[in-house]
């Protein structure tokens, strides 16, 4: 079927097979490989994108469902070569290790902050609960979100003797 949608504000029209997922169309047809496939089953969150502002696992959305809708991916987060405030905070707090979960993590945080500009630690944990990090960097992500929302505790996690 023929679908039309926007990705990061750019308009695309594509002929897609009914079984193709949004993730495969983004990665293989549009060349937007920042969204990663970690499981292909909606478990790991590495493919998180925003669909009309809501965070979704792109591996669980059929491309056909994106018809007429607005998609935002990690490639649209930095503007004109400048990192967004969320990206800057992730960088400052070393909330990046192997990086494979990072794009999806940033998109989940972006949706969280759009809904809730001052989330508590518990709400941050809930906001990223669909995003696995196997390098175990959750604490740094939480601190980055506290920092970017101007809340205390951004440096209070690990104590180094």
């Amino acid at each position, binding site marked *: 079927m023929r679908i039309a949608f926007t990705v990061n504000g750019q308009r695309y029209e594509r002929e897609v097979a009914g079984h193709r997922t949004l993730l495969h169309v983004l990665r293989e047809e549009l060349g937007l490989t920042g969204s990663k496939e970690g499981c292909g089953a909606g478990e790991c969150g590495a493919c998180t994108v925003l669909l009309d502002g809501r965070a979704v696992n792109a591996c669980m959305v059929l491309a056909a469902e994106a018809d007429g809708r607005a998609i935002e991916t990690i490639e649209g987060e930095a503007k004109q070569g400048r*990192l967004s405030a969320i990206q800057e905070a992730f*960088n400052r707090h070393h909330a990046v290790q192997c990086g494979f*979960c*990072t794009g999806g993590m940033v998109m989940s945080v972006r949706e969280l902050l759009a809904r809730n500009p001052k989330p508590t630690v518990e709400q941050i944990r809930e906001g990223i609960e669909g995003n*696995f990090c196997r390098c175990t960097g959750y604490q740094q992500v939480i601190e980055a979100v506290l920092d970017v929302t101007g809340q205390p505790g951004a440096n209070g996690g690990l104590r180094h003797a």
Partner: protein
Amino acid sequence: MRDAIDTGDLMHVGRVRDRSEAVAKLTGEAVYASDLAFPGMLHAQVVKSPHARARIRRIDTSKAEALPGVRAVLTGAELEYRLGLYIVDKHILARNEVRHFGEAVAAVAADTLEIARAAAELVEVDYEVLAAVLNHMDALKEGAPLVHPDLGSYDYVAAVFSPKPGTNIANLTKLRKGDVEKGFAEAEWIVEREYTNPSVQHVPMETHVAIVEWRTGDQVTIWSSAQSPFTVRNLFCYAFKLPHNNVRVIVPHVGGGFGGKAGIHLEPLCACLSRKAGGRPVKFQATREEEFSLLPCRSALTYRIKTGVGADGRITAQKMTMYWDAGAYADYAVNVTRASGYSGAGPYEIPNAWLDAYTLYTNKPYGTAYRGFGHVEFFWGLERHMELVAEAIGMDPLEFRRRNALRPGSRTLTGETITTHSGDVVKCIDAVAASIGWGRTSPDEAAHEARTGRRIGKGIAALHKAPAMPPFTATAVVVKMNSDATVIVNLGLTEIGQGSTTMIAQIVAERLRFDLSKVHVVVDKDTSRDPYDWQTVASKGIVLSGNAAVLACDDLLRQAYDVAAQALRAQPCDLDHDGEKVFVVHHPEQSVSFAALSVGYTFPNGNAVGGPLIGVGRYIAQGLTNLDKETGQGNPALDWTYGAHGVVVEVDPASGEYRVLKIASAFD
């Protein structure tokens, strides 16, 4: 190599610096092997065994071959190549017999992933199901099926490992110290127990992936998510009898490894498919489900420990037997067995010790390297054991550990003598005990118990670790100066999220006295461009590559000083430098910039001297030896790390539900 460095004087090392490759990862620009695609690239799928052990009676690939878009179909019958890190025991596709659930028996490469999947389903395999060894504790039993009846004919690293043909024993590592029976005779108490750890999966966020192009003249290029590109190249060449300079392994960003990507995995299969498909690149990425069976896991362990303790609470003797579940192939499990064997007594002095560590073949997915390389698994058993022995003899478990801890003058299991320069495990134990308030319940904790109805418990565990590496573990670093006096650094150590790129950049900037922005360490690895590195494992990256980086900087500076000496008409010994230039110590205004020296210095009349400044540093592990195969005596460790953890937990006495309230860790 040890420099006495006052860390307070350092500009970059030990300071908080941005992670070198963080921006590329935050923007989605960082390219991983799974993101790569090439013109004409085919997609592979494998047909996997649904049985733990079965004879392959017949494979019919005709329907798969007839499917439009299929470019190559392979079965094990065509592939007489064997692979293995330490014991060469694995075929690329199973031949005659499958040895574990999920083992690949056939493979296809097709124009699209959808066609490859459909073709794989069209392959018909007729199995005769055989009795399987499904528990490693059954593998040693009389009459157990043999996972590798031909074990005696396999190549293996004979200096280090001891397979036992005619059994399921892939390796037996032995440690002997003192007289264990005499020690038990002197004991007041003897406690014997068994501890088990299950197999687990690494679950890297990026599943294993390889793309291979086998071109005319046996020129092979491999793009892989591997941790250790030179290991992939060397084992690949061993299997296919190709010279190393025919095969190029490229590793871009890696989405986590944790040991699971340390060996060679999907590369040979993609290579054979590419060769059969006329040289088109073939990509295979494991699904998450395939990570759990086609690809390796962490080995399970059963650890039996018998401890004799004297009236004074000192251990007199300890007999230890480890049963490691290799699964169907030996891979790293034999070396995990060796490493856990020589570490197996923990940071304690055991005057009379006896340890046998078995690696056992079973019909299960095979084990490989995993974070900690055996230590996490055996330490769970050992530290639980220390706790239970202390309870049995009626001694405080902290005191029991302190009393038996290694101290200067102690001898380890492998016969090394602890000195005042070794790490101090007692200090670590005391530090964490103080941090968690060991042996008492604080007023706050008592109030917490009264308020919540939960009980507070405290626990301590001690540790030591010596990463496993061969005595010849080596690496090199190349520092190349550009004509604007910035530098590019090449090394074979792979960035898998551990931050090695940033750390090497800090070390290079420190040694050259340059601004960090002038140093670029290349993230992606290429065995045809980068200098050799043994592997990205064993916590050896920064100590070996870091030392090589220091030496490479010294080499580059020596070259720069030689040219500067000519330009400034001074002796090299009278020169010094800062982040911009080389200058004469007594006349600092007489200077020449690194940019002017970088690719050769030109005199005003046009004469030129020198040439591109390229520093090379090599480093190799110092002082390691092979261990005696009968007694385990020798020096297996580049260095030992000592440490301790203390935890405070709250437990609901009704449900057993618990929560960790605090963890304190100390290392030396």
